[in-house]
């Protein structure tokens, strides 16, 4: 097994004005499960394809283990790939599909047989070995594609949206299975997805990309609780973080955040940072996660300086939680996530309070998180 290192990697297509991937630096440790996540066109797949050798690297160095592999053909990189399309060879049965890569590499028949049967057992597809791909369901095909990668016993697994073609239920199942599988095989895995739930649940570390640039590389917890900028804060979390533009001001020794329909006190610890960095008196963007807005009387009682009033124009009850869509705060809709048993209804005027210890303040120009930069 091996780690993967990307040093100042760039990808620029001929004729394109701007690079698709810019100055990517990543050190992926041996046996690490790293997830590349970001919206369409952010450069995550291109980065993976460069690691796979399917795309030429315009600039920078790529290491697998200690070896620079920029000019090494994909077959000699000791990697195995699983893609969204999982193009199984239609004229071969499952066994032949899984064995083909090994046959090409002239592995002995007995060893091929052993590896295929072992992988089939792990993936629970032994009963499908004689079937042709067209006789398989989407989930079974995806397992075969995984099996094809597993039998290669590679140093690194590369997966590009491997679950996208599956329905939601199956995707949930396969998500857990892939995580277990990669842990069991103790192989380095680089996984690309647009789905933040996949990213948060599968990765040891997540790399958020936007416009070809790495925004943040961190553990799921860190990414959620300490987003480095507005993009990451808005990308991770569902419903997304609320952003309210307002001004920080000081009165009676306390720092307040004031915006349309909102005047809340910033806790002492955060206030000190804001003062030190010279943000008092300036316009900033406050980020509040929906679950950090409360309606419980106990919380309101304990946080009298963070209370605000709003109108509920839409409620979405998901069962265990209810999402309140609020107007009258800031310039956009603010969403609060409250208990599913809440009695609040559409059209109500409500009193809510913000857990100010959990807020984030972003610089209006650079969009960076003031507390973590």
């Amino acid at each position: 097994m091996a780690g993967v290192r990307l040093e100042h990697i760039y990808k620029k297509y001929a004729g394109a004005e701007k690079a698709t991937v810019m100055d990517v630096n990543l050190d992926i440790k041996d046996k690490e499960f790293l997830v590349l996540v970001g919206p369409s066109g952010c450069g995550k797949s291109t980065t993976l394809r460069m690691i796979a050798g399917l795309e030429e690297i315009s600039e920078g160095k790529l290491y697998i283990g200690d070896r620079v592999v920029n000019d090494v053909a994909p077959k000699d990189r000791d990697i195995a790939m699983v893609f969204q399309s999982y193009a199984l060879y239609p004229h071969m049965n499952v066994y032949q599909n899984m064995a083909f890569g090994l046959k090409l590499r002239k592995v002995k028949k007995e060893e091929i047989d052993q590896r295929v049967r072992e992988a089939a057992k792990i993936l629970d597809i032994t009963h499908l070995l004689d079937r042709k791909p067209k006789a398989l369901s989407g989930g079974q095909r995806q397992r075969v594609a995984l099996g094809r990668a597993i039998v290669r016993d590679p140093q690194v697994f590369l997966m590009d949206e491997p679950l996208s073609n599956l329905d939601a239920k199956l995707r949930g199942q396969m998500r857990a299975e892939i995580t277990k599988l990669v842990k069991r095989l103790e192989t380095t895995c680089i996984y690309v997805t647009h789905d933040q739930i996949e990213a948060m649940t599968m990765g040891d570390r997540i790399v958020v990309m936007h416009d070809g640039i790495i925004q943040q590389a961190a553990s799921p917890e860190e990414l959620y609780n300490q987003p480095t900028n507005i993009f990451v804060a808005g990308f991770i979390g569902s419903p997304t973080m609320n952003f309210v533009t307002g001004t920080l001001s000081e009165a009676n020794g306390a720092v307040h955040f004031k915006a349309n329909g909102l005047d809340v006190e910033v806790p002492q610890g955060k206030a000190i940072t804001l003062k030190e960095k010279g943000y008092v008196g300036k316009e900033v963007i406050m980020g509040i996660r929906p679950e950090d807005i409360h309606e419980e009387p106990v919380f309101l009682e304990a946080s009298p300086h963070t209370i605000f009033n709003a109108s509920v124009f839409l409620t979405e009850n998901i069962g265990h939680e209810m999402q309140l869509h609020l107007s009258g705060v800031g310039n956009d809709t603010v969403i609060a996530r409250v208990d599913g048993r809440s009695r609040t209804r559409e059209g109500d005027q409500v009193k809510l309070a913000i857990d100010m210890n959990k807020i984030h303040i972003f610089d209006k120009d650079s969009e960076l998180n003031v507390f973590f930069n």
Partner: protein
Amino acid sequence: MDIQLVREKLERVVGDSVEQRDLSLKEWSSWAKAAKAGSEVSGTTAVIKGKRLFIPWDQSEAGITGFEMDAKVVTESEIRLIELVVEAARGAGFSSVASSPGDEEERNTRLGQWIQAQLDRGLLHEEIPDQLNLKSRLTGTMVPFLLSYENRTHRDLTYKQLNKLLQSYFDGDITLVPLPGSREWLILVGESLLNGFKEESDEGQDTERGMLYDLCQGVYELISNEWGGTSHLSVLDPITPLQSLTSAVSLLRESLQLGRLFHLTEHIHLPWALYLERLIYSIPDEQRRQFLDQTVPHASSTVFTDNETLSTLESFFQLDCNVSETAKRLYIHRNTLLYRMDKIKQETGLDVRSFQDAVLVKLTLLLCKVTKRK
């Protein structure tokens, strides 16, 4: 054709068990000696030893592979017929199997040059001449694939590398023809490749074409995963290469050209999926521009140059104008998709949810692609 398939067919025809047998050269020589005195034994002749009949199929340095059966169940004339059938099924006689890879490459390169010469002269229906010594190999119907491969990082593919890979993929039964210019390869595969599939399927041509697409996809992934680089593939329904090889190459090339022009991100370009593109391409440039100016005056607006709008529309048309499926494919909410469509309607006056307007937008998109490049 696959040896196993031939064995099964022979078994059905003779109504008795037929075994696949590998003879060493020494064993083969003993069989040949046992053949009737005075009869000529070549690598293709059936021979009888005692009560057993052996029909050769393939020859290698190690020996001869063939079929063994009870000699009593067939008459002398039936043996001759079986010889003929086996030879036809094999597609190529022993001469090609036994010939060195270098000879084969040279011969297939000559065929590639001949095809190119025919194309240059506009002769699309000439039969392959005898002197190319390929007639025996190109009998029956075959599936033609055209592969275009380019690799800027690594060395270009060699005949030997590609032939080996494709032989493994198609299980041996292929003819690889390098076309002049070293970037294009014609791959001819015996139609038997589709036989197993046809037998299992009742859904006709659509499914067979689906299978051809999947085969192309497999070749594409295989080559990418082995060597990287950029490959594009096209395939046709089975043809009779002796008469129609040049016209097939012409159509394959046209499909690759149109596919690469109109569908930049795709790698498999199928002629039956490019009818509209072919029609558009045949329209003179001036008339294309006139059509755009008169029919869709907004074509030059940002709507048809904006990447997000383009990818939205392309997915929408690919998915037969299905709003839910398109939203799913693009990982966006259905309402976001409807909003984008309303925006297009606002800016162009065309609502892609109505058939008439969808046709116009589709044509406009294709025309924009081809006029932009002029």
